[in-house]
């Protein structure tokens, strides 16, 4: 079992990604796809007059400030535009893909953090009425039923809270939670960079291997921006029993296959 997360940043080649997924499925690999949609969400939010706002936590992680309207825009893009685009491309390639959000069938269940701590200009603050959270439980029965039926699940945030509210969750960590729950041997996380870079943005400075004992060190000293959350999701996946995590580049052909062959940053 392989869980493949493809990001939503600019530059990602979804045609190439879907073509590679189709090739792997035809070769008999059992796959689950998880995707993002951040750059499209930003564009649609701007167009709708509700520009995105990002906040930074006291330990330096950035995340989208998610009020109810932002959550609805998030759903339009992630569950609508992005999810159906990927499912459509896979169907056209002969893959019987099924698109689901974490809300559907209670697929990804988690705790909502309605109040969060942020830092703005060096000042700490609490922001309320936020719709974010973290996946704590995965409906493996639903995924197993789809996989046994020959379908390829294509999954996307949001997740659903214990109080049945949609919550914005990080897709990399949701993919990690899915890989843990399904006892996947490999988690592939693809984005618009080649992996963890020692000297960001110098792509020649790729760190090819990170032993699990070194994840915190690499995160603290080399990871920039969203890469820190990818490393956090990787650490959680490894600690949860996933054999290896590969952080790879989705801007090129055969991006999943080349990542599985070890191109990128391998964490094990």
């Amino acid at each position, binding site marked *: 079992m392989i869980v493949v997360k493809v990001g939503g940043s600019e530059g990602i080649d979804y045609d190439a990604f879907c073509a590679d997924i189709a090739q792997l499925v035809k070769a008999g690999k059992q796959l689950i796809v998880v995707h*993002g949609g*951040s750059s499209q969400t930003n564009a649609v939010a701007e167009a709708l007059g509700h520009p995105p706002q990002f*906040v930074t*936590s*006291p*330990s330096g*992680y950035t*995340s*989208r400030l*998610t009020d109810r309207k932002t959550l609805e825009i*998030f759903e339009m893009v992630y569950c609508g535009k992005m999810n159906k685009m990927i499912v459509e491309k896979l169907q056209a390639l002969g893959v019987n893909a099924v698109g689901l959000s974490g809300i559907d069938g209670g697929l990804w269940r988690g705790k909502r*953090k309605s*109040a*969060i*701590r*942020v830092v*703005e200009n060096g*000042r*700490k*603050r*609490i*922001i*309320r009425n*936020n719709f*974010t*959270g*973290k996946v704590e439980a995965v409906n493996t029965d639903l995924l197993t039923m789809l996989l046994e039926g020959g379908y390829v699940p294509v999954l996307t*945030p949001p997740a659903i809270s214990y109080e049945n509210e949609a*919550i*914005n*969750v*990080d*897709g990399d*960590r949701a993919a990690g939670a899915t890989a843990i729950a399904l006892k996947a041997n490999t988690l592939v996380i693809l984005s618009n960079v080649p992996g963890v870079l020692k000297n960001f943005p110098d792509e020649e400075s790729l760190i090819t291997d990170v032993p699990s004992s070194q994840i915190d060190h690499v995160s603290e000293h080399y990871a920039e921006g969203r890469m820190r*959350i990818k490393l*956090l999701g990787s650490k959680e996946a490894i600690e949860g029993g996933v054999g290896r995590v590969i952080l790879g580049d989705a801007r090129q052909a055969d991006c999943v296959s080349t990542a599985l062959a070890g191109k990128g940053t391998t964490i094990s």
Partner: protein
Amino acid sequence: MNATCPICEGEVEIAADVMAGELVECPDCGSELEITSIDPLTVEEAPEVEEDWGE
């Protein structure tokens, strides 16, 4: 402007440009306090809430 710490009743100096939701520390007892309202100025003991690592 000043507020009274709800924990120790000590005096807490609040900056003029304080924001709603901002966290300040009581200089007397060290409690973390949340500015729950600017006008009128009210402070409460800050809740134990987590960071957000969402998308």
